[in-house]
């Protein structure tokens, strides 16, 4: 099948960020004093377990960031035409989960629709719950549903356990060889938690994730695991697609404003005098405006601009993507002040130290002092800020989408799911699954991010060492 790769703005930035992170990791791993705090993070069971969960989310998000368009089947060979629908590698991997749409709501794992309809039965119109087109379509009647679910879960459980055992075996053999231990000795050390890294937590976490993934995959093959939404789309699919939106907002927002926060913060602290006054004035002004209002105003303006210039965007995905990027920029504009203030204080302290004086006495230029002596010493603050901001931004997206100034309504996001599901709880019987799925996934991501951030902060901040 012919495809045309599509690189959206956020895709490009995400992969640039990934490359940056990898380069940073490589340079850190070569320097002992930088490696030490990360090694300390690596020894914390809670942080590493959280990192594993984050890794799964990031993997899904990255797969969902590789976009392409399919070639239309009836397009001429010499002048190929491509579908307007932008798909991602993730869409291709989940197969027909994207296209198996029902008519309207259906409960999780249901085989009947949520609402009664007139169904033609033996030439007579009967009002009943019609069968779903895809969910449980392989079953003959309702009595088979429960045994089938149990059977699928059991298969998934065994497969998950087997996969985990296999992985664990490979890991054990490899690690034992590396540490020049016998396999039995390595296993005892692992069991007693004396490996130097949280092996038990990681293995248990991985097993749990594998089993969960197995259960989801096996059930999703025959049912709508989290039900379907108002227009009949699979809620599991929407929730998984929302992961990318959350990750983009959580990471790019801080990334796009880092240059601003770092340069202004350090400059204010290092140069002092009128530079400091001007920069302080700017961030007091920005800070004094209520954040939500500034974001709302800016988003309304961007929205108006996008609507009045439809010719700039060749498809709906590109339009939604530009709006997402604009949202990141705007949220970043209102949130860089905190980091800038922190960096200003630190640069103020550093610029009075002897080694900076010495550098000045030698006639080293300002740019060189700033880049070689000040910046490396405040870098850990930048890092902690990025990690700590992440979870707050993911949560903020939901609130902004509720207010109506979040991501594009056509984009899958947890905020849009919650916003769309606002009135569903008032229905009879209650439609709870869309809300439940959005909250559960958002909670998992934010909790993992918070726990990981705690680990990073404790490892980097010497004052908090043993401060329990």
């Amino acid at each position, binding site marked *: 099948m012919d495809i045309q790769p599509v690189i959206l703005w956020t895709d490009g930035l995400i992969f640039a960020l990934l490359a940056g992170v990898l380069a940073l990791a490589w340079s850190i791993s070569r320097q002992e004093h930088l490696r030490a705090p990360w090694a300390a993070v690596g020894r914390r069971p809670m942080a590493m377990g959280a990192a594993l969960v984050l890794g799964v989310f990031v993997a899904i998000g990255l797969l969902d960031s590789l976009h392409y368009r399919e070639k239309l089947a009836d397009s001429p060979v010499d002048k190929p035409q491509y579908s307007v629908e932008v798909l991602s590698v993730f869409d291709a991997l989940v197969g027909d989960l994207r296209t198996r749409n029902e008519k309207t709501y259906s409960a999780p794992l249901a085989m009947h629709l949520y609402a009664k309809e007139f169904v033609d039965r033996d030439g007579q119109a009967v009002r009943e719950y019609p069968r779903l087109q895809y969910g449980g379509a392989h079953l003959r009647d309702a009595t088979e549903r429960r045994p089938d679910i149990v059977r699928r879960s059991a298969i998934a459980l065994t497969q998950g356990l087997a996969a985990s055992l296999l992985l664990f075996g490979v890991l054990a053999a490899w690690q034992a060889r590396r540490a020049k231990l016998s396999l039995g000795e390595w296993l005892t050390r692992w069991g007693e938690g004396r490996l130097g890294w949280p092996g038990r937590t990681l293995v248990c976490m991985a097993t749990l994730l594998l089993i969960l993934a197995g259960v989801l995959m096996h059930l999703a093959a025959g049912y709508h695991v989290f039900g379907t939404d108002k227009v009949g789309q699979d809620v599991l699919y929407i929730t998984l697609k929302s992961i990318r939106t959350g990750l983009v907002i959580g990471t790019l927002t801080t990334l796009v404003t880092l240059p601003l926060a770092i340069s202004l913060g350090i400059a204010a602290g290092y140069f002092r005098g009128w530079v400091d006054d001007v920069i302080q004035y700017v961030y007091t002004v920005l800070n004094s405006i209520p954040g939500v*209002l500034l974001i709302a105003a800016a988003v309304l303006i961007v929205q108006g601009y996008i609507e*009045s210039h439809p010719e700039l965007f060749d498809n709906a995905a590109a339009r939604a993507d530009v709006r997402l990027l604009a949202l990141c920029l705007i949220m970043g504009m209102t949130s860089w002040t905190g980091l800038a203030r922190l960096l200003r204080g630190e640069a103020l302290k550093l610029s009075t130290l002897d080694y900076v004086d010495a550098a000045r006495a030698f006639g080293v230029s300002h740019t060189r002092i700033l880049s070689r002596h000040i910046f490396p010493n405040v870098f850990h603050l930048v890092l902690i800020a990025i990690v700590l901001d992440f979870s707050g931004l993911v949560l903020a997206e939901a609130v902004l989408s509720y207010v109506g100034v979040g991501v594009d309504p056509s984009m899958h996001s947890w905020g849009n799911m919650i916003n769309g599901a606002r009135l569903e709880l008032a229905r009879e019987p209650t439609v709870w699954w869309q809300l439940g799925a959005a909250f559960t996934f958002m909670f998992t991501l934010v909790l993992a991010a*918070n726990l990981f951030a705690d680990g990073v902060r404790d490892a980097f901040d010497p004052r908090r060492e043993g401060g329990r």
Partner: protein
Amino acid sequence: MFAYLLRRLLYAIPILIGVNLLTFALFFVVNTPDDMARLQLGAKHVTPEAIERWKSEHGYDKPLLLNHAAEGSAQFTDTIFFQHSAAMFVFEFGKGDDGRDIGNEIRNRMGPSLAIALPVFVVGLLVNITFALLMVFFRATYLDLWGVVLCVVLMSISGLFYIIAGQYFIASLWKLLPISGFAGGIGGLKFILLPVLVSVVAGIGGGSRWYRTIFIEEIGKDYVRTARAKGLSELRVLFRHVLKNGMIPILTGAVVVIPTLFMGSLITESFFGIPGLGSYTIDAIQAQDFAVVRAMVFLGSVLYIVGLILTDLSYSWVDPRVRLQ
């Protein structure tokens, strides 16, 4: 003291001018009155005449900064900047798109906002300090460890979830309290209880963890060791010494929030149907009523700056060593 206060007030003026210029730039230069008119009229009704009519109805048909057609001082006063932006300094906010006076609306809606925000602030502070003290009392035990984990878990739950779950279980399912609405006087108490409860619970995680860190830092100081060496009981040390000194950063940190309580909470008010400033703002954002949004931006900045000044004053009030010069 008085001279200090005066200087702080004078310093607030350039900041407010900055806010004003920024909002002017955002709302009139980046987003011109023509764009506003187009957005309000909708795609179907956009004709040059309709846009002109809309602009003259709202007073946006004047030049932005300088009116060359006018004479004398009217060159500066008969402009959008003077009538819509500079007028905010004397709290003249003009009219919203629904034709009502914004200043009047703000006065009417402050009460309901405060009726929710003030109890949330006070009760929240008390509850969070209590939990933080409990964790500090049991510090370095499993109770403390799991308390912190619980805080992180509570922090990780979306604020929307607390509201939706609270409304669904308490109001809709168990029918203990009305789901939304507002009334003045003592009869309005039943409407206030649920939003206050939900907001306080939503704030417990972040609040008590933050206060716990403050108390833990305080407990490592020398005077605490002295107090223990004197033979005081742990409870007495905690309540007489640590609590008192820990309250300094907590209270001074909370002061900055007090003036902004008038603004209310956007989400809580809109979910619970409270006719306060928060729901007013949300409605304005959703209806794209830029006049109201502009007024709320300015009001919010004024209140924030008042909060900053109050914070400075409170520092010198609780800690006599801090001199205001």
